[in-house]
């Protein structure tokens, strides 16, 4: 672990890092002073040069996203930090908010200066009560010191920051859903176009960035974009946080340079599989990306391109490891249940289809499946994917399809047992909800 450059998790174990004093003692809030002297457009250029990609899941280049914001509309530009980290398996932002909130604030200030935004908001997941408290205290400290508010760091730049706690909906992590929720409405994604960069919060240009993305900015501005670009691979630059969970010895959040081999990550950082069992499969980037079987992991690295080539996605870095004892039907059911529960109910295919798929998986898992169920699920997935307002529809079908595609036998066995009059008993399942 120690051989990786620690950009975000440096000093993370220091007990006073979350205080302003502790952060400044370790060189915090120095970069922003320098940045405030720079031309905002230069800042964007620097971030573009760093090759930093959005860490929320989509991996869209951050500098490019900023450059879509129109600068001459006469409307205010709003900056939103997306801390609505709700993807199953993902808990990396929580560490940053809890242990190093001032790094996030400094990152937000850099982005705010680049976008010339005078108002920003951190939208924190409703369940994150403690991170919310920590971050809110940090904002208060920054205000008291004059680092926020009128005349940031004695400059003429004015910037106000608020912290907003969500009400516990996964879909508010989608940027337009987040904006709706922030405006006080029901968290339901908006139709695109128009995109938030043009029409966002209260109809004004808005940038929504992930917490980790923004927290990376102080390092980039301190060391220069090209130095950041030198880390990692050519197209996946820098380091990334991975939140490892599942059947491993050392679950936790790890920062590794992109391009690090997955098998090494499991062996070194995760400490190998629990109880010395065999690795069955992993979900590399949060629950909405396809699973990768153990035999597909050879030579695959933790970077956007390599994982994509292997047939999955890096996503948000929610690294879920499953050992040989895992029942893939239950995995599919568990995730289907999650997505059916979190569907916002706005558009038809996801609202109705998500629940339908869950019900079929449940039937199969409980030993009441029929031969055509798998074809039916595949057909439903085809009609949900790409037919919805937001990417939730695609997120919903991906685990369902990949579990069935990679482990068809496990599904068939359960169905056949049911057909032969020997169904699975409910007590055989780990399923509880």
């Amino acid at each position: 672990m120690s051989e990786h450059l620690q950009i975000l998790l440096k000093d993370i174990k220091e007990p006073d890092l979350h205080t302003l004093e502790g952060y400044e003692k370790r060189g915090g809030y120095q970069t922003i002073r320098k940045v405030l002297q720079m031309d905002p457009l230069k800042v964007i250029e620097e971030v573009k040069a760093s090759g930093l990609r959005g860490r929320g899941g989509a991996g869209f280049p951050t500098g490019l996203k900023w450059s879509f914001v129109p600068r001459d509309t006469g409307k205010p530009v709003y900056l939103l930090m997306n801390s609505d980290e709700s993807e199953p398996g993902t808990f990396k932002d929580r560490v940053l908010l809890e242990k190093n909130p001032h790094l996030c604030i400094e990152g937000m200030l850099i982005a705010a200066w680049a976008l010339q935004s005078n108002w920003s908001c951190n939208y924190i997941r409703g369940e994150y009560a403690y991170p919310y408290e920590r971050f809110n205290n940090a904002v208060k400290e920054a205000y008291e010191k004059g680092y926020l508010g009128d005349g940031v760091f004695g400059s003429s730049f004015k910037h106000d920051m608020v912290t907003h706690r969500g009400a516990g909906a996964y879909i508010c992590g989608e940027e337009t859903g987040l904006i709706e929720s922030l405006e006080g409405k029901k968290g339901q994604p908006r139709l695109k176009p128009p995109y938030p960069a043009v029409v966002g919060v209260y109809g004004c240009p808005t940038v929504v960035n992930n917490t980790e993305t923004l927290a990376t900015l102080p390092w980039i501005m301190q060391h220069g974009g090209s130095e950041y670009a030198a880390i990692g691979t050519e197209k996946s630059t820098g380091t990334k946080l991975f939140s490892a969970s599942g059947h491993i010895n050392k679950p936790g959040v790890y920062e590794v340079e992109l391009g690090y081999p997955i098998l090494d990550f499991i062996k070194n950082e995760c400490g190998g599989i629990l109880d010395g069992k065999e690795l069955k499969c992993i979900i590399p980037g949060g629950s909405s990306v396809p699973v990768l079987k153990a035999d597909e992991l050879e030579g695959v690295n933790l970077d956007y391109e390599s994982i994509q080539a292997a047939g999955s996605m890096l996503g948000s870095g929610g690294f879920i490891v499953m050992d040989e004892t895992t029942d893939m039907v239950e995995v599919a059911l568990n995730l289907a249940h999650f997505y059916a529960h979190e569907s916002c109910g706005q558009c038809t295919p996801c609202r109705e289809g998500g629940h339908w798929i869950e019900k079929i998986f449940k039937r199969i898992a409980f030993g009441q499946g029929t031969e055509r169920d798998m074809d039916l699920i595949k057909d439903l997935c085809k009609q949900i994917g790409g037919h919805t307002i937001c990417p939730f529809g695609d997120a919903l079908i991906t685990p369902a399809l990949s579990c069935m595609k990679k482990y068809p036998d496990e599904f068939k066995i359960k169905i056949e047992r049911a057909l032969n009059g020997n169904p699975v008993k409910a007590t055989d399942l780990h399923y509880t909800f």
Partner: protein
Amino acid sequence: MAETELVKITIDDKQIEVPKGMNLVEAAASTGTFIPHYCYHPDLSIAGNCRMCQIEIEGRPKLEIACNTMVQDGMVIRTHHTSKLVEDAQAATLEFILINHPLDCTVCDQSGHCKLQDYHYKYNAQPSRFEEDKVNKVKAQPLGPHVILDGERCIMCTRCIRFCDEVAETSELGMLNRGDKSVITVGEGQQLDNPLSGSVVDLCPVGALTHRDWRFNSRIWYTRETESICTGCSTGCNVKVAVRDNQVVQVKARYNEFVNKEWMCDEGRYGFHRFIPENRLLSPVLKGSQCSIEQALAEAKKLSAQNLYIFISPDLTLEEMTLVKKFIDSKFSEATPVVAYRKRELSELEAKLISPNFAANIMGAEAAGLVNGNAQQNYEDALAALRSGKAESVLFIGERSLFAEDRTDELLASVSKVGLSIGILADADSSLVRALSVVFPERVIAEKSGLMINQIKRLQYLDRLLDFPVGTESAWRILDRISAELGAKLTAAKNDRDFTLEFFASHENFQHTTIQDVKGQGIALDGSGETDSDKREVYSPFLTALGKY
């Protein structure tokens, strides 16, 4: 109309030119291609949630929704007619919508005019593959005094929510819960009781929202639907009225871009019956007792022009108004014609749709030359003349020629003192009937057809909804018979339709107009909103009298 830029697009291999900025549902409609949709409504914001209007656009990786896609030059679009992908997506959308739908068509009021039924037959028509339990939601939940929700039938198109947010701006409705448990609801402690609340039932493409007054009244296929206009106020909302066994079963707003879009006020919709008295006058009445029409006419013949006040109902058709004018000009030019008219105060919300002129055809009266000066003042003056005994004879044409609030004992006592008082009325229970010397039974507005001019000077056609009771006559016919007794026959028409045609024929401006032209969207007399600029020229001379309201 300003010239708008046109763009060329291809829909199903057919090249068309449409104005820039148009969405694809409208663009396709202009070539006669109907793209099915639930949530899209031309006068509400785009929600894009039903996913019924998906189409394929060349060069785009995914299907797009037609309602939220604006035409771009060179766009190549495939609809369900030519794209298998789209066809499948629409069939799948319908399957999804129907999995949790109760399929209670056999008892549903919407059955027969339900978009869910129509589209299913047309775009899916497959048995469902859903074998699980359906989700249960609220049934028969009153949202307000007029509207009842069946949550299970709802397809969450949110048209009703958007109507309350955007048109009524009262925002009573919202969506509760998530996923397949989503349900439409009123805000806590609130009720859907705005003056336009019934419109959400019209907007509901399925049977989720129903009228409290008309639930389980009749299957729609047993009714006769007539396109007419509402006569509650001078807005003249276009309506479609379903009638069964001579009873109004349902009143629906009918789309008219210029008049009422697809909205209608509750007062007009549910108050339809206020123009139909419970106890109808079926034969003439002479001094309080029934008589033959000849006896009544013989009495009415004695009418003289001296200090004669003619009270005219503002609900008469334009043709009738014209005939009244002729009647006055032929023998009674010294008489004082008065159109019953009183402006009403409206709240800001009511004023969005309702006209302060609670007098359906006050513009028609104006056009016919029956209003001299201020109509309201004239009416009050005439009432004063009745009270002071200045009026020597009086003629009431139409039930609404004297407002109910004016029928005080004091006024009726003065009326009974007038030398000769004649009424053409409908309500047998009315106190006015007993105060008059002669009363003729008239047909009410729902039993007549004819022309009306609304407040934005649109000529619209009022169609007959109900059968009239035997013994009644249209006001114009009674007036013509009285006039004939006096030696001046005013019209040769035998029925309302002939009467309208005669009106067209006798007015130079309407020589080429047919009833069919006036039906549907009506005709703008001042040419506004019409692309055909000639119309302005044709009708303007007729309008010289209009413009004060």
